[in-house]
C-alpha cells in the first residue's frame, strides 16, 4: 500500500500562538525524511500533527490536510486511535512500560486491540524484535526481564519494536537517539536505514549530522515555516535557501 504523506496548508496553534504556518510537502514512502531546525521551530509539532497527537494537548488546534496513503487523517469520522495504528511513534526518552516484561511491552499494542492468538503473537513479537535489531540480545529473557532492566539503547530499540508490532505504515521518531551514547546512536541509525525498506520514516532531530547520515530527504523548519525541502545530499552540499546554509554551517541557531 502507498504510504507517502501528503501535507497541504497545515497550520497548528498552541492557544493563540501559531506554531506552524501553511506547511505543504510530500513525504515519499519507504524513505527516511528528516525534519531539522532550531529549538522551537515547530519540528516536533509538525510530526505530532501527522498522527493527531498535537490535538491531545489542551488549547491546541490544527487546520489543513494530512493524507497518508489514501487516508485523510483529519477527515470526518476518522478516529485518532485508528490512525495511531497506522502511524507508530518513538520518542526522545525511551518509555517502555516499566513493570511489563520485554515480551509484554512488544505485545501490548496488539493485546489492547484484542489480539488473542498466542502462537501468532509469539511470532509477531519475535519479528518485531528482530526488525528492531534487539532479538539476539533479549531472546533468552523475553518474559523474565522487565523492559526497564535494559540499557537506554536497548530500551529505545524495544520501543521501536513495540511501535512495529502493530504493523504501521509510517514510523515517526522524535529525537530517537538524543538520549543515547554514540554506539547506541549508531545502532539506531543503522536500524533506521534498514526500516525504510518497509516503512515510511520521519525523524525529528536537532542533530543535523544525524539527519545527514540517515535521511534521504531533509526538511528545514524555521519559526514555524518550512524553509526548504530537498534531497539530503542537496541540502547538505548546495542548499537553495541562504537561511538553510546559515543554519547548517552554524552561522545561526
Amino acid at each position, binding site marked *: 500500500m502507498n504510504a507517502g504523506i501528503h501535507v497541504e496548508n497545515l497550520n497548528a496553534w498552541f492557544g493563540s500562538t501559531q506554531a506552524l504556518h501553511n506547511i505543504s510537502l510530500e513525504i515519499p514512502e519507504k524513505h527516511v525524511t528528516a525534519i531539522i531546525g532550531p529549538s522551537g521551530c515547530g519540528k516536533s509539532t509538525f510530526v505530532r500533527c501527522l498522527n493527531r497527537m498535537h490535538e491531545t494537548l489542551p488549547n491546541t488546534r490544527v487546520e489543513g490536510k494530512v493524507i497518508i496513503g489514501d487516508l485523510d487523517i483529519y477527515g470526518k469520522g476518522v478516529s485518532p486511535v485508528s490512525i495511531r495504528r497506522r502511524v507508530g511513534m518513538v520518542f526522545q526518552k525511551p518509555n517502555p512500560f516499566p513493570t511489563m516484561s520485554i515480551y509484554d511491552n512488544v505485545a501490548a499494542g496488539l493485546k489492547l486491540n484484542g489480539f488473542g492468538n498466542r502462537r501468532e503473537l509469539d511470532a509477531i513479537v519475535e519479528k518485531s524484535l528482530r526488525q528492531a535489531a534487539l532479538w539476539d540480545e533479549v531472546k533468552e529473557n523475553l518474559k523474565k526481564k522487565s523492559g526497564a532492566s535494559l540499557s537506554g539503547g536497548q530500551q529505545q530499540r524495544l520501543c521501536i519494536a513495540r511501535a512495529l508490532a502493530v504493523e504501521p505504515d509510517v514510523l515517526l521518531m522524535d529525537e530517537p537517539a538524543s538520549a543515547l551514547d554514540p*554506539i547506541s546512536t*549508531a*545502532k539506531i*541509525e*543503522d536500524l533506521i*536505514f534498514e526500516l525504510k525498506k518497509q516503512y515510511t520514516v520521519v525523524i525529528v532531530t536537532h542533530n543535523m*549530522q544525524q539527519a*545527514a*547520515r*540517515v535521511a534521504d530527504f531533509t526538511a528545514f523548519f524555521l519559526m514555524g515555516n518550512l524553509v526548504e525541502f530537498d534531497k*539530503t*545530499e542537496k541540502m*547538505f*552540499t548546495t542548499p537553495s535557501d541562504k537561511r538553510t546554509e546559515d543554519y547548517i554551517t552554524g552561522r545561526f541557531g
Partner: protein
Amino acid sequence: MTRTRFHQGLDDLKQKLLTMGGMAEQAVERAVLAFQNRDVSVCELVLRDEAHINAAEREVDEMAIDLLAMQQPMAVDLRFIVACIKINSDLERVGDQAVNIAERVMDMVNNPKADLNVDIPRMASLSINMVRDALNAFLTADVEMARSVLERDDLVDNMNREIFEAADYAMTHSMETHRDAIDTMLVARNLERVADHATNIAEDVIFWVRGADVRHHAQM
C-alpha cells in the same frame, strides 16, 4: 559493525576510483602503443576515452563531497576521503598526459623520423608500472609498495633528461627531422609527468594509511 551505510559509501568510492585508475592507465598504454606504431587510429581511441575519465572525475568528487558533508568522517576515514579527492585529480591528469602523447603522435606521422638513440618504450613501461603499483598500493593499503613507487621516480627523471639531451643533439645536427625530435622530447616530458602523478598517488596512500606527510622528500 555499525555505520553500515557509511562504510558502504567508502567502499563504493574506492571502487569508483580504482575503475577510473584502470581507465587512466589504459589511456597511457594506448598512447604509447600509438607512439611505437605511429598509429593514428589508436590516438583517436585515446582522445575519445578522455571524456569518460573526465566524467569519472566528476563522479568521484561528488561521492567524496557527499560523504564529507553527510557522514562526518574522522581519523583514517577522513584521511581516506581526502586522499581519494587528491588521487582523483592526479588520475585525471594522467589521462590528460595520454591525450598529449596522442596529439604528438598525430603530428609525428606527418614528419620524417629523427634518428634518436632513446628508449621511450622502456621509459613508458617504468611510468605505467609506477601508476599501476600506486593503484595497487591504494587497493591493498600497502605502504611498502607505495614507497617503492616513490623510489622509482628518479629513474624516470633521469631518462627524461637523457632524452632531452639526445633530442637537443638531433635538432642541432639534422634540421629536416627537428620536429620529430621535438615531439619525442615532449612525449618523454609527458611520461615524466605520468610518473610524477604516480608519485603523488603513492604519497597520498601513505598519508591515508599512516597519517604521514611524505611529500617533497619529507621524512617518513
